[in-house]
């Protein structure tokens, strides 16, 4: 379905084209089950915003014959695959597009019943906002809670709770307000999430695009008006500057640039940057694009940077500002959403993709599993499909990251199965595995001592001054360990702690 925006007959196309240049983009996900009327709502948004073409309408009207449907079954506009149409269900995330004069919209339409966690997590991962549909007759159901939890987990800052089928409860304000009160109470558990409640009838069109005359007691904007005006995208813009290097560009001996997307923050020509993991400092000489050089680049822009110094930089390295660095660690704590029928293999090898860096990693420990109906923590020694757990992950090389809650792009990763190459898990980083939790062995070729509060390091082979082989040293004091770790990293010494629990 293509986005067709209604053109006012009096409005010249040039003015329309100008307006188009300023148009923003909102990505949202919709959650709800077959019975909540989600497909009908999306069909309605597409139809009422004139994003459905007549022949597509004809083809679904044709297909509606023989099924239990009215004149137009809006849900058929969105049920894509033949297998689904035959069974009357939706089995996978589908993407839909429509536009109004104010915004272009990308909908990640996720099914509510089968494999809901996997699909909803996928849909929410690229979304700014989620619409949760609640059947006015049924109120807050366990699945509404699940959807709210997953939205909060995936870092969506906006929820729209659309209380649907208001026509079936006589547009009664008390029904709506009771659900709103119920839901708000539950949402109190997730701070940092804003919510908007709107009573609608997707089937009749009440409060979907235009405000309903059947619910004059409701003063807020219609669902579409809200989607057109809600502010989005501020988080990546205001976060710290992060630039994962995607490719080294060397067309000739003269030019050596680093291509990538500014995933958050902004950077200007002339600014000092740190290259991680090496820790080398240099300065930005140029910000290049096909359309000319820029003075400043902001979150979301795909650019190529040139640097003052010839530093060995490769794909997967990250540029950041000196006073605002990401964490660097190879043992991280993360929430994993398991996506595969093959359960998580504790200690087994997985390919981990984080920003533009791929490397081997393994799941060291499952801290707990989260029951997504009760949000209780349960002890677990495995994760099966659609389960969510908090785990420790150890990677072969250091990861440069932020916590997912502060930065989506540098706080997310996927795990890929070594044998099948399937994407088996989505990961949201909480932070580094804390040193306090265990003691570590230090490599034998590093000697250290604390002297009047200062850490003194001696480097060399695996022997002491007298030529005796040095035993690996065990450090128990977390503060010392932290200081030592940071010093070694700054010196560029690769090390791997042997953890002793």
């Amino acid at each position, binding site marked *: 379905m*293509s986005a067709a*925006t209604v053109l006012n007959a009096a409005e010249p196309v040039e003015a329309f084209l100008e307006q188009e240049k300023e148009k923003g*983009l909102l990505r949202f996900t919709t959650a709800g089950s077959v019975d909540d009327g989600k497909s009908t709502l999306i069909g309605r948004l597409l139809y009422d915003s004139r994003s459905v073409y007549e022949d597509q309408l004809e083809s679904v009207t044709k297909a509606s014959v023989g099924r239990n449907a009215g004149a137009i079954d809006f849900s058929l506009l969105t*049920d*894509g*695959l033949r297998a689904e149409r035959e069974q009357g269900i939706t089995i996978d995330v589908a993407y839909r597009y429509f536009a109004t004069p104010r915004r272009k919209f990308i909908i990640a339409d996720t099914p509510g019943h089968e494999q809901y966690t996997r699909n909803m997590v996928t849909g929410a991962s690229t979304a700014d906002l989620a619409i949760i549909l609640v059947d006015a007759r049924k109120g807050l159901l366990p699945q509404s809670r699940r959807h709210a939890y997953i939205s909060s987990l995936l870092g969506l800052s906006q929820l729209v709770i659309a209380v649907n089928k208001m026509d079936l409860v006589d547009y009664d304000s008390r029904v709506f307000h009771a659900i709103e009160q119920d839901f708000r109470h539950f949402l109190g558990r997730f701070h940092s999430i804003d919510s908007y409640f709107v009573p609608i009838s997707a089937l009749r069109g009440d409060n979907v695009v235009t405000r309903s005359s059947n619910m004059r007691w409701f003063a807020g904007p219609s669902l579409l008006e809200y989607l057109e005006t809600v502010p989005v995208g501020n988080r990546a813009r205001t976060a710290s500057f992060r630039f994962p290097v995607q490719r080294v560009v060397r067309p000739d001996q003269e030019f050596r640039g680093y291509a990538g997307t500014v995933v958050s923050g902004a950077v200007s020509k002339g600014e000092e940057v740190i290259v991680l993991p090496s820790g080398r400092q240099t300065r930005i000489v140029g910000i290049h694009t096909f359309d000319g050089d820029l003075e400043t680049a902001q979150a*979301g822009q795909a650019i190529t940077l040139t640097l003052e110094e010839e530093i060995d930089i490769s794909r997967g390295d990250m540029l950041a500002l000196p006073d605002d660095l990401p964490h660097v660690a190879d043992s991280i704590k993360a929430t994993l959403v398991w996506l595969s029928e093959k359960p998580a293999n504790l200690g087994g090898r997985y390919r981990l993709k984080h920003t533009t860096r791929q490397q081997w990693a393994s799941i060291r420990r499952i801290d707990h599993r989260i029951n997504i109906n009760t949000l209780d923590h349960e002890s677990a020694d495995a994760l099966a499909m659609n389960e969510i757990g908090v785990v420790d992950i150890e990677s072969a090389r250091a990861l440069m990251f932020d916590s997912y809650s502060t930065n989506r792009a540098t706080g997310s990763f996927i795990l890929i199965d070594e044998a099948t190459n399937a994407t088996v898990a989505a990961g949201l980083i909480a932070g580094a595995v804390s040193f306090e939790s265990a003691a570590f062995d230090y490599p034998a070729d590093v000697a250290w001592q604390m002297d009047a509060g200062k850490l003194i390091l001696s480097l060399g082979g695996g022997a002491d001054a007298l030529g005796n082989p040095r035993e690996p040293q065990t450090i128990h004091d977390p503060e010392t360990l932290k200081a030592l770790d940071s010093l070694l990293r700054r010196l560029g010494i690769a090390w791997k702690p042997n953890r002793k629990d």
Partner: protein
Amino acid sequence: MPTLSHLQQLEAESIHIIREVVAECAHPVLLYSIGKDSSVLLRLAQKALHPAPIPFPLLHIDTGYKFKEMIEFRDRYTAELGVKLIVHTNTKAHAEGANPFAWGTQRCCGALKTTALLDGLREGGFDAAIGGARRDEERSRAKERVFSFRDARGQWDPRNQRPELWSLYNSRIHAGESLRVFPLSNWTELDIWHYIHAENIPIVPLYFAKRRPMLVRGDSLLPVEQPFVPRLPGEEPQYVRCRMRSLGCSPCTGAIRSDADTVPRIIEELITFRRSERQNRVIDHDQDGSMELKKQEGYF
């Protein structure tokens, strides 16, 4: 700093995708269909790789029934950009007389497009084919991944797709398997035209209205480039002011009556138009859900 517009965001996303392919795939190729989406894709590839030239070749699956103007445009434009062009045709099927009237559209497409594409990819040893398909084109495409996995026979399994999260694309495959990559997934037809307008991107003149000879059958306008297109008794081509909304093989692509002879006029037509662009493609109408069946077999 102003926030990025929707076109700027789409452009940056596509550039990111193309760069991921070049960084992670050993032998990528760009499937060049000569249409407007291919023109946009080429511009995005230039932008993604700038200041280096486009490092991968273009592969055109030539059915032998494309419009003459398409082939002229292809040869001129690719030469101008200095990119390497590979043209692959299923010559065997041609020799056996494949055409949509003799063989039916399904069998003809199967041989001249699907088989030719799979052969072309195999012969070139390509592990990733970058294509210009968009999710808004057809219902079955709404669930296509950006990095879409194909098994060793080039087939798509819609029920067993890899989950695709954030912009972390999984490009890992075993020998013999391949990927189809769609950087324009999130673009709509209108976005494409806006971008062509904003960037002044060259496109095949067939998109612009002009008087052309057509067989007029009710609302349908049939191009007469190929001699085997059957005529009704006494039927003669008439000159009609028309244009193509999407480009394919001349016997299977209908024209629409139109006065839109500039990009803004096309956009104006589009936003008041109530028919989807694939509607004039005869090939999609064989069976309900026919695109999905073709894709499972390996069609682009």
